[in-house]
């Protein structure tokens, strides 16, 4: 049995393995599955002792091996490039482990012949690396790793460099050998098919984290997260809304199982696998039917056919996978049917045989801290997290390598002091705003938090270099929460909305936060004196109903002022709010001349501000 407890590996500015815990049962073939760069190979190398973890414990068959060198771990490892010793014959390669252990020549020869037979290479013992094929090399590497009867077999992408046909053969023989020897085995691969075929259980790794572990069938049929759902196999993910104990998906009302709790009005993600969709010429009774679609593509793939069906937009349904092209609100579904099945009708009715509801995603906060001064962003996230049921990553940016370690320590200490439990700390190196943007790009965060200083000190520092929050406000791709001073409890949120702009991200993001924090929301529009139109009121009314749908008590107001920011300030003076939400043009867009409203609001409002880039929510 192999046990990993909270194993973490860090390099200068990366965390390739982040608190991974797992148990590999005796005799099982355990697969670590992930995209390249996910950290799966590093985990394997830590089990092998070729890389040492910075935190955590590793034990093999009950023995703590965390700090043992590879020689002392009793393992066999097969590398992707095989690394057959080129100056030795196949036989000498296989015998190498025995020779090192001082086994007598006769005994070595016997064992070597057994192994050559086991891997199907009898008679090739006299050949050199250059005289055998890729598949044969792989078999030699396997035999070499098995020769001294190691307690554990580790395989690092063992079939990666082989062509498809040989790969399939080798998989089969590996499976047989592993079963026959009953050897505890860990295999690393990026190939989902390989993982399914070989794995007793599969662990899906993404960005150094262990997402889910389970038998192949369980993971395929009922994944918890979106990543696992889409990484393992094809399918569509549609988002509906939760109502009572159901999810409304266009015309369908599907029950939400007890183990995936959703709050009223939450977005619910429904996974539909291609083989679970039924196409028929007439609507069928007794099967949940999504509606009538149109076949736009029919592709022959050998044993099956893939039919792509385009559905008209479904009310209240948004598609996340496959990602729809910009501006497209039709739903695209891929359907798998046996190759010999009758061609589908041109305009088929689409029904669902089965579906699966994914877990509510965990909101992820990216909390930026400088390691000194006010810890307002940290304190605010400590206040948000319990209500959001989310996780926080504390990010610091060091100017150079020397500062990294001390910054990491002070961040951890400050996070603990602010009451942030279970947060992870990341330190990047470089220019602060740039690194924060890179971190946003690298991992799926929902909000980025940063301190925005006290008003008083801000006024003094007016002529200084631009504040970090100001720099981020115009470049962030996710909502930015600039926390001013000591955080207050969120009771009233002011959402400042312009009229008639295409995205309504600010209302949605502000409303989402309001619902979870149990706060009331006010929608504010600033109009020039005498220019207020019935259209504006109508627009605000629609916003309030959006809030209501989210379960938030909302109201609206129109403030008359020549200048939008002055209008907001005037409104705030009479109606105290704890958070102001403003929109921002999507990052990268050419800004209009003059000072952007977003920036002025950030500087001049005395409260914390949520900057929501257009289209980010």
């Amino acid at each position, binding site marked *: 049995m192999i046990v990993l407890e909270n194993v973490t590996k860090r390099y200068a500015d990366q965390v390739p393995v982040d608190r991974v815990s797992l148990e590999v049962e005796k005799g099982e073939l355990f697969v670590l599955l992930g995209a390249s760069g996910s950290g799966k190979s590093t985990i394997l190398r830590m089990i*092998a*002792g*070729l890389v040492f973890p910075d935190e955590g414990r590793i034990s093999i068959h009950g023995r703590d091996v965390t700090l043992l060198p590879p020689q002392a771990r009793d393992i066999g490892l097969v590398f992707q490039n095989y690394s057959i010793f080129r*100056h030795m014959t196949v036989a000498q390669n296989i015998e190498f*482990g025995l020779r090192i252990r001082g086994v007598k020549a006769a005994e070595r020869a016997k064992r070597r012949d057994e192994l050559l037979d086991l891997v199907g290479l009898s008679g090739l013992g006299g050949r050199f690396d250059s005289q055998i094929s890729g598949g044969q090399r792989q078999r030699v590497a396997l035999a070499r790793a098995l020769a001294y009867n190691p307690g554990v077999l580790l395989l690092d992408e063992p079939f990666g460099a082989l062509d498809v046909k040989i790969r399939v053969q080798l998989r089969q023989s590996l499976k047989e050998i592993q079963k026959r020897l009953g050897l505890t085995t860990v295999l690393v691969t990026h190939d989902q098919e390989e993982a399914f075929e070989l794995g007793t259980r599969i662990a899906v790794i993404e960005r150094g984290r262990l997402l889910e572990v389970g038998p192949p069938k369980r993971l395929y049929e009922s994944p918890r997260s979106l990543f696992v759902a889409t990484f393992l196999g094809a399918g569509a993910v549609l988002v509906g809304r939760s109502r009572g104990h159901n999810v409304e998906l266009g015309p369908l009302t599907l029950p939400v199982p007890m183990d995936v709790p959703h709050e009223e009005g939450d977005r619910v993600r429904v996974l539909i696998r291609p083989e679970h969709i039924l196409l028929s010429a007439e609507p069928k009774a007794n099967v949940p039917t999504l509606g009538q679609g149109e076949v736009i593509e029919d592709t022959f793939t050998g044993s099956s056919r893939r039919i792509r069906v385009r559905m008209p937009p479904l009310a209240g349904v948004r598609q996340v996978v496959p990602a729809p092209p910009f501006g497209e609100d039709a739903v695209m579904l891929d359907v798998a049917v046996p190759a010999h099945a009758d061609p589908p009708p041109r305009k088929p009715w689409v029904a669902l045989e089965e579906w699966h509801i994914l877990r509510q995603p965990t909101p992820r906060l990216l909390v930026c801290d400088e390691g000194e001064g006010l810890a307002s962003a940290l304190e605010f996230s400590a206040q948000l997290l319990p209500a959001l049921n989310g996780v926080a990553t504390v990010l610091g940016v060091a100017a150079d390598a020397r500062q990294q370690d001390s910054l990491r320590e002070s961040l951890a200490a400050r996070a603990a002091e602010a009451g942030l439990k279970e947060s992870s700390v990341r330190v990047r190196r470089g220019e602060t705003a740039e690194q924060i943007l890179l971190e946003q790009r690298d991992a799926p965060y929902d909000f980025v938090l940063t301190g925005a200083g006290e008003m008083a000190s801000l006024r003094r520092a007016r002529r200084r270099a631009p504040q970090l929050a100001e720099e981020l406000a115009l470049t962030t791709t996710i909502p930015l929460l600039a926390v001013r001073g000591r955080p207050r409890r969120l009771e009233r949120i002011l959402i400042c909305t312009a009229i008639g702009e295409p995205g309504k991200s600010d209302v949605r993001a502000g409303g989402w936060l309001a619902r979870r924090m149990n706060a009331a929301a006010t929608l504010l529009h600033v109009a020039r004196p005498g220019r207020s139109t019935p259209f504006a009121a109508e627009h605000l009314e629609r916003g309030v109903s959006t809030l209501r749908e989210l379960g938030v008590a909302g109201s609206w107001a129109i403030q008359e002022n020549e200048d939008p920011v002055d209008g907001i300030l005037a409104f705030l003076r009479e109606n105290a709010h704890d958070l102001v939400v403003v929109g921002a043009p999507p990052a990268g867009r050419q800004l209009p001349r003059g000072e952007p409203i977003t920036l002025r609001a950030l500087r001049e409002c005395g409260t914390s501000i949520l900057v929501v880039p257009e289209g980010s929510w």
Partner: protein
Amino acid sequence: MSTATAVVVRPKRRAAVPAGLVILFLLPLILMPLAAVFAFAFRGGPRAFWVALSSAEAQFALRFSLVIALVTAVINSVLGTFTAYVLSRYRFRGQRVLGIVVNLPVAIPTVVVGTSLLLLWGPIGLLGRFLGPVGLQPMFAPAGVLLAHLFVTFPYMLGAVKPVLDELEETYEEAAYTIGASTWQTFRFVILPTLKGGLFAGALLTFAHSLGEFGATVMVSGNLRLKTQTAPLYIFAQFEAGNIETANAVAAVLAILSFCIFFVLLRYTARPTDQH
């Protein structure tokens, strides 16, 4: 069905003119001087050649050169391989600088090498002045010649071995570790055998360069007959003394030796890489 065979006519490029040109300028530059050595060496007939070679001084110079070259090759094989291994396998502060420093000897004029050795180890040198009273005097002695040769030929071993090590994937060693081999066993049984070719080539190169070394040797050896006089120094001394035939006889021997080493190297490196 008829098959039409397309005949591709490639315009022939005439090689006679450019090749002839190359030979024309190589003739006075390289070919004729080489021929001159042998022509002069045998001008008095084989007997005279033999007499010239069998003088005690000539014999000593040739033997001394061979011994020094051999010892230099052995010592630099070990040191060069170790240095190459460290440079290729470890990452440390100052590694780049070290990588440049170890290759410096190819760039420094050999006379300067000789001078600097004298300034360090000589009777009034930085370290040498403390050695004198103890009775040690490396300069103007065989040890000094060896030091000079080690210095001058150091980069050749490194240059032959390091590329092989650099190309050896890291998993090669890791495979040995996971199989259970210690660091030493891995080096002895896994790394060293793959370096065989590089080691051989590097050792031959070192040997050949040592055999012909002149600039540094002339400075540190004091050019003492029957004590520190290497073959190249002997040739120079005989030339200066006007014994052109004697000088040429030893020169011819050195030339033949160098040719042999060169052809072995050529054959070795021309072989497709490590076919067993």
